[in-house]
């Protein structure tokens, strides 16, 4: 059985021996290089663009501005959660008349190499009429705020209203009411490899584009539509991908511009985003302000929850439509059973880089707010915050449980789980019972230590379907084609293990093929922690059909009933006794002779997502002199029903934690008042390094398999990220408990801790 085994990743050999093929590694004869000219202003009218001087430079091959693109070109549409109301704020590949964020693409230069292209940039003369920018979502709603898209007539593009019961009414009867404002700063996934594309166009107008990731088949269709070509005239190919995390692989302006340039030049055109560009051009995420009200009784039982969320969308609606705000609100109640809920989300435009999803979209933000609020309720009542959590959890016997809210076109319905259990494990592991004593002794030595918890529910297995095609070759090797893509998560290994399990062959006899529209007939791609659940189930079924065929052929040959046989150790065995009945080497020629095709396709459909869950716990120490924070101990309990490869799950949790830590303490895409990004390089945008990421103890639980798929799996991709900020914030607050400092906004920088230590007087 290879499902459940921590097998080595099949992906790694090539990657660690330098054989990876990233888009930047590809070279074709006559290849030339594109550079994008971007707006230096947050908000401006483009008065004129003069490219003549640049066009005349030696080595410059093509310059494109909006007027060089087809008149009937449509803007880039939404991939997920589309809504017609949002269409007036979609982005065109090149800005038409107006720029709305620093980094908005205005022109493309293609030259014989990148040096020449960057030289030519100096000779493109653009006259801007600078408009007042708006850089804050709340200010953007004020009546005198400049409007970004005059056609839309407002900066509030969308209002999402979710409710269950009557929160306003319920709040009136609650013994205690708390109102708080919390803020999550703008940050995003920063892949080690920036985006890149290489497009080739031959004389008969056929396009081949390398550099796709994440959602290859969707982008394939979109590319054809925008370029006005037949789908079979374009081949889109995924290359090795140096990190996905949400931003990478969506359809961006360059995904139109680079193929378009290749079609114009009939030469291979490459564009590699540089890091400074990446910070301005690639999706940002996370920035939200919450105004939360909770009503509860003296025992900490919370009955009513009201939240008003201001969601900073940036200058345009991009491919995610309303995904992030709707997920924020639908997943906001987390593991708790609140009887009355009302959440209003304002999706607001600002003159900043547009946003999309980033690992744990909406849950990182919502979990921070909710889990801080739980601790505030506990502090208000002077109760143990873990007890307050226990009193509010949805109980296992309430499953399936709906919180009455919806996102991604479906009502949230948790399938299974015991939320109290993961908290209890965290409490025991971290020594919560004895912690107050330990804390007191530390304080006597002048040390400030604190322990914090944060519970979360994740979602995974977003449908509506995924495709797999499994074929056994005459030599017994297996090809598994999948509509998923490899963004580093290990889907190659995972699917190989699934096929191996069904077919009784070693997992390294399975080759997984993905991300090439000429080889894989359809797919939805890798996002939303859907791969193992939906793509894994498709592979399970396709391999299962193949197994049936093999066993049937063997049964015919051996003249025994099919149900006596099984596939194991590279052959057919008698199920009961386990002795070999026939090797695959013997069986495969028989199948060939009988004309049995050993290729099976399966499209696995799923209507509801599945919900893994867990608990993070952090023990921290604060330096009273500097406010510096040290993580002494970090723990994650995660129940995902079934781990196909526990080592990969652990890797996901630890890597996810590192990104969550970035969002909690370090990363901040900060804008000044004129809309300039002031943390737009690795000098100022701080991602945690190996020196900052602590040891993380993970406990992977399989107590509540999903009833919604044959493998019982729930996803592993995002649970490591979503609860880091509240676990750490709660630990900081716990370390400073007598000072009653709220810590309601991220990032939790040492300066704020120091300020708190210095300014706040003990309450008593």
């Amino acid at each position, binding site marked *: 059985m290879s499902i459940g085994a921590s097998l080595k990743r099949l992906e790694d050999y090539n990657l660690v021996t330098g054989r990876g093929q990233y888009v930047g590694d590809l070279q074709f004869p006559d290849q030339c290089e594109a550079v994008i000219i971007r707006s230096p202003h947050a908000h401006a009218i483009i008065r004129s663009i003069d490219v003549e001087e640049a066009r005349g430079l030696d080595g410059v091959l093509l310059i494109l501005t909006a007027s060089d693109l087809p008149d009937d070109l449509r803007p880039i549409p939404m991939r997920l959660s589309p809504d017609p109301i949002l269409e007036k704020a979609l982005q065109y590949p090149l800005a038409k008349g107006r720029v709305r964020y620093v980094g908005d693409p205005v022109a493309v230069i293609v030259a014989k190499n990148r*040096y020449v292209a960057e030289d030519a940039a100096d000779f493109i003369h653009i006259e801007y009429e600078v408009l007042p920018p708006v850089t804050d979502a709340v200010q953007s709603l004020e009546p005198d705020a400049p409007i970004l898209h005059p056609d839309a007539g407002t900066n509030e593009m969308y209002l999402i209203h979710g409710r269950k019961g009557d929160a306003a009414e319920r709040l009136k009867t609650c013994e205690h009411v708390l109102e708080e404002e919390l803020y999550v700063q703008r940050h995003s996934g920063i892949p080690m490899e920036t985006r890149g594309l290489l497009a080739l166009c031959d004389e008969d107008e056929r396009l081949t584009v390398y550099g796709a990731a994440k959602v290859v088949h969707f982008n394939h269709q979109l590319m054809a539509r925008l370029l006005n070509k037949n789908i079979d005239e374009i081949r889109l190919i995924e290359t090795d991908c140096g990190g996905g995390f949400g931003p990478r692989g969506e359809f961006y302006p360059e995904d139109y511009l680079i193929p378009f340039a290749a079609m114009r030049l009939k030469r291979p055109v490459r564009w590699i985003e540089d890091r400074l560009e990446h910070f301005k051009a690639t999706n940002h995420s996370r920035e939200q302000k919450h105004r939360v009200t909770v009503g509860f009784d003296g025992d900490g039982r919370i009955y009513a929850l009201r939240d008003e969320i201001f969601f900073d969308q940036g200058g345009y609606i991009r491919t995610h439509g309303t995904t992030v705000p709707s997920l924020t609100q639908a997943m906001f109640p987390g593991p708790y059973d609140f009887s009355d809920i009302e959440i209003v989300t304002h999706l607001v435009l600002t003159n900043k880089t547009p946003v999309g999803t980033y690992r744990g979209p909406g849950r990182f933000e919502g979990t921070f707010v909710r889990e801080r609020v739980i601790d505030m309720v506990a502090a208000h009542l002077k109760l143990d915050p873990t007890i307050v959590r226990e009193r509010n959890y949805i109980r296992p016997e309430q499953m399936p449980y709906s919180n009455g809210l919806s996102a991604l076109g479906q009502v949230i319905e948790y399938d299974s789980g015991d939320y109290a259990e993961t908290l209890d494990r965290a409490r025991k592991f971290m020594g919560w019972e004895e912690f107050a004593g330990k804390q007191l002794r530390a304080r006597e030595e002048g040390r400030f230590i604190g322990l914090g918890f944060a519970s979360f529910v994740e979602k995974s297995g977003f449908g509506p379907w995924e495709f797999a095609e499994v074929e056994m070759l005459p030599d017994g090797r297996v090809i598994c084609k999948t509509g998923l893509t490899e963004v580093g998560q290990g889907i190659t290994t995972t699917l190989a293990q699934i096929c191996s399990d069904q077919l009784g062959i070693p997992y390294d006899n399975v080759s997984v093929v993905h991300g090439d529209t000429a080889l894989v007939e359809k797919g939805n791609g890798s996002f939303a922690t859907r791969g193992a659940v939906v793509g894994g189930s498709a592979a399970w079924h396709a391999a299962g059909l193949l197994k049936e065929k093999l066993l049937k052929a063997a049964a015919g040959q051996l003249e025994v009933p099919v149900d006596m046989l099984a596939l194991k150790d590279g052959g057919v065995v008698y199920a009961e006794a386990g002795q070999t009945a026939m090797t695959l080497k013997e069986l495969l020629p028989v199948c060939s002779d009988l004309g049995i095709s050993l290729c099976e396709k399966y499209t696995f459909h799923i209507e509801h997502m599945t919900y893994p869950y867990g608990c993070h716990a952090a023990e921290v120490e604060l330096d009273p*002199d*500097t406010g510096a924070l040290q993580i002494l101990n970090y723990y994650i309990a995660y129940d995902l029903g079934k781990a196909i490869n526990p080592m990969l799950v652990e890797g996901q949790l630890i890597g996810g934690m590192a990104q969550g830590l970035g969002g909690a303490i370090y990363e901040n895409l900060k804008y000044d008042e004129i809309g300039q990004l002031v943390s737009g390089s690795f000098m100022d945008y701080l991602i945690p390094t190996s020196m900052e990421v602590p040891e993380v103890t993970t406990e992977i639980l399989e107590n509540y398999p999903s009833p919604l798929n044959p493998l019982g799996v729930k996803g592993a991709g995002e649970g490591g990220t979503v609860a880091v900020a509240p676990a750490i914030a709660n630990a900081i607050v716990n370390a400073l408990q007598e000072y009653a400092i709220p810590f309601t906004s991220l990032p939790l920088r040492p300066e704020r801790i120091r300020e708190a230590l*210095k300014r706040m007087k003990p309450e008593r």
Partner: protein
Amino acid sequence: MKPAAFDYYKPETLAEALSLLDEFGYDAKILAGGQSLIPMMNMRLARPPVLIDINGVPGMTGIEVGDSEIVIGGLTRHYMVEHSAEIERSCPMLAEGIKLIGHSQIRSRGTIGGSIVHADPTAELPVMLTALGGKVTVVSSGEERELTPEELFLTYMTTTIEPNEIVKSVHFPVIAERTGHAIEEFTLRSGDFAIIIAAASVTLDEEGLIESAALCIGGVDGVPVKLDEVTDELIGQAPSEELFAESCEPIVDMVEPEKDIHASVEYRKDLCVALSRRVLKKAADEAKLA
């Protein structure tokens, strides 16, 4: 992120390098370790028309420890200082502080002379040079001259070195008897540029009282700031935690840092006080052991 076009020269002798400098003057930039210059050129924040690569110039690399002075060639890489047992013995501050420069990849290329002429006031080498009262020898075709840190550093990224001069060597004093060194910096992440950096040297007399002391802070002004007002008060006193706490408190009013996105003025001042106290205490503790 590709640099603008430039002419590239790779002289084989110091004389040749200096004559190229005479020829190109302000148009030329010296390429040593390139750890600051190359990123600036790639971002086109610096566009020198001429680059003079001195990596092939002999005789500018090496560490010589004499009785009272350490002479480090301008082209000596940070890692060579970091891994020198002689430096560890003869100048603990330098041994400790050099490790705080960036990351090991940076220290393997970056040079002592390059750090000094880059003159970042929060960088480790300018702060240590100022704290310890070292010297810098610069050469041009015509002459060789020695500069104290006070003569050398003008303001942010600016020195009094002329466009026709090269840093030949950097000089640090060998640690005296009954002396302790300490250096500490506050960064948001390991290896980042310091928000505040403090370095101290404390010498005790035979009775264990403070005979002399030096304290230097980076990150509060255009050049490293030496706080003699603080250390003068310490002379003749017995080192103690309380003494250093008390004497460092007034630093809040002595420094005038500027804010940036990573730290406010007030926080920087707080850090100056805290780090000064810590380095003085640690240096005194080291002196007791010496």
